């Protein structure tokens, strides 16, 4: 079998050369990584989250090491706004990248999501990845993704203004991620992406204050992998939607675990920051690892631990 076909997967009818997608916020629009390797090796790219208006984000310091296995960030969705992205960053990405483009969108009201997604609907992106870890300014700052009703409302509102596949990116900072996932499915989501970062904290004991100015931030990196894997598996067992698994992935072995748990594609996030070659290294290693594990095609193992 052709080497390439062994890694091929499909999300909502879109074929990806492999399941590897750099996670939003860790890869910009690929420019920095393109200096090191040909980013066309990637199955997809989820670009830096965009919002209706330009944002500077949170005060510094807003990123820090979080022990030996992770980092914490409260960057706060700095981005130039969706119209700038459509006019500048997206065309530049399209000019040198031929794979699946995942457009990550955030918002602070349902209207924000609707307006941003309606604009992106007309653009050459392949999947809309809707980040509902954002606080709802109309609901006392509770994140949309913490309630099934709010998650469903955003899902339905976005689905109404686009024909692109809509993948809801779920927050792990919830009591029951399955309830959120099912609500998104019922509201018409085409797929799910999980997990976003886990709310965390570190304190600088010499300065006697939190390491980041925002006090709390999103913990990511290898330390969260078991949490992410557990949630991907729970959601895979409870819904019928394709899942993009994300959270602490830093090796080809982790990718296999995520897919066996139920993910069709796998995002790699924090690992890109510490080893900028990691996504390419994982893609290069997968065929050899698959030979060792007697995996013919990656599609053979999606959700395999869930098959009774």
């Amino acid at each position, binding site marked *: 079998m052709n080497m390439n076909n062994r890694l091929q997967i499909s999300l909502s009818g879109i074929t990806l050369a492999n399941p590897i997608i750099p996670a939003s*916020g*860790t*890869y*910009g629009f690929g*420019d*920095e*990584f393109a*200096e*090191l390797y040909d980013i066309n090796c990637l199955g997809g790219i989820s670009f*830096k989250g965009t919002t209706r208006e330009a944002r*500077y*984000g949170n005060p*510094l*310091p*807003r*990123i*820090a*090491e*979080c*022990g*030996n*296995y*992770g*980092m914490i*960030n409260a*960057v706060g969705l*700095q981005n130039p706004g969706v119209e700038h992205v459509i006019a500048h960053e997206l065309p530049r990405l399209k000019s040198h990248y031929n794979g699946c483009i995942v457009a990550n969108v955030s918002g602070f009201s349902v209207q924000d999501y609707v307006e941003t997604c309606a604009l992106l609907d007309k653009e050459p992106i392949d999947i809309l990845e809707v980040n509902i870890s954002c606080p709802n300014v109309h609901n006392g700052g509770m994140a949309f993704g913490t309630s099934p009703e709010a998650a469903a409302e955003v899902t339905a509102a976005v689905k109404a203004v686009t024909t692109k596949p809509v993948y809801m990116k779920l927050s792990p900072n919830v009591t029951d991620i399955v309830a959120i996932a099912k609500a998104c499915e019922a509201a018409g989501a085409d797929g799910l992406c999980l997990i976003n970062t886990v709310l965390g904290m570190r304190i600088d004991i010499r300065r006697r204050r939190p390491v980041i100015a925002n006090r709390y931030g999103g913990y990511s*990196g290898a330390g969260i992998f078991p949490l992410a894997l557990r949630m991907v598996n729970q959601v895979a067992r409870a819904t019928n939607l394709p899942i993009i698994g994300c959270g602490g992935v830093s090796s080809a072995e982790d990718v296999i675990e995520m897919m066996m748990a139920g993910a069709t594609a796998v995002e790699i996030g924090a690992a*890109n*920051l*510490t*080893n*900028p*070659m990691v996504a390419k290294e994982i893609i290069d290693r997968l065929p050899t690892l698959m030979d060792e594990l007697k995996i013919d095609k990656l599609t053979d193992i999606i959700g395999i631990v869930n098959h009774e």
Partner: protein
Amino acid sequence: MKQRLFEIQSNEQIAKSVYRMQLCGDTAGILPGQFVNIRVQGQFLRRPISVCNITDGILTIIYKVVGVGTEAMSHLPIGTKLDILTVLGNGYDLTKAGDAPLLVGGGVGVPPMYMLARQLREMGKAVRVILGFNTKDEVFYEEEFRALGCDVTVTTVDGSHGVKGFVTNALDGQQSYYYTCGPLPMIKALLQAAGTNGEVSMEERMGCGFGACIGCTIQTTQGPKRVCKEGPVFPAEILIL
């Protein structure tokens, strides 16, 4: 940006909590004012350290032990191979120097001034250098700058060595273009005293160090800029301090 392996040739303490490490590897493309990002075993994020000098395939860095990563670095033996990202950041603009530039470094802001001073001297410039420290046992590289042919003044806050006071106490009112690197209070005082005819090497906590995560973005009068990518060197006039 490049990712390369370097081998430690030396790693020795040169002042209180301050170490100089020399590494052998591919130094091509590295400019004064840039930094490198070092993978330290056991630590999650890389450690960004300014480039002190490059000569004949040897990279010299000077770092202060401020946390677990730099503490680990201070114990690394000769022969250790380190995974380092190089050619990071924008570097200094030597075309702006004029005939008699002023270099002002404070504490661990001193090292990046060295390669700059060396290149300015090679261009035939008359280089004045002010090095500011807290106290005598923190002073380093005074003789190294003098050996380049620079006019060097050292200041210590407690007066235990050189001129007593801050770097601003050593200014002589000349209207030179300046290059500076050091703690934020020093930078603010210098801009206040000497105006904005100069460029400043800024420092902020970084994530990736190469522009992808936008964790290190500062506000400027020209919009948000990444310290690791559009910086670390910025024209003094655009900074919002």
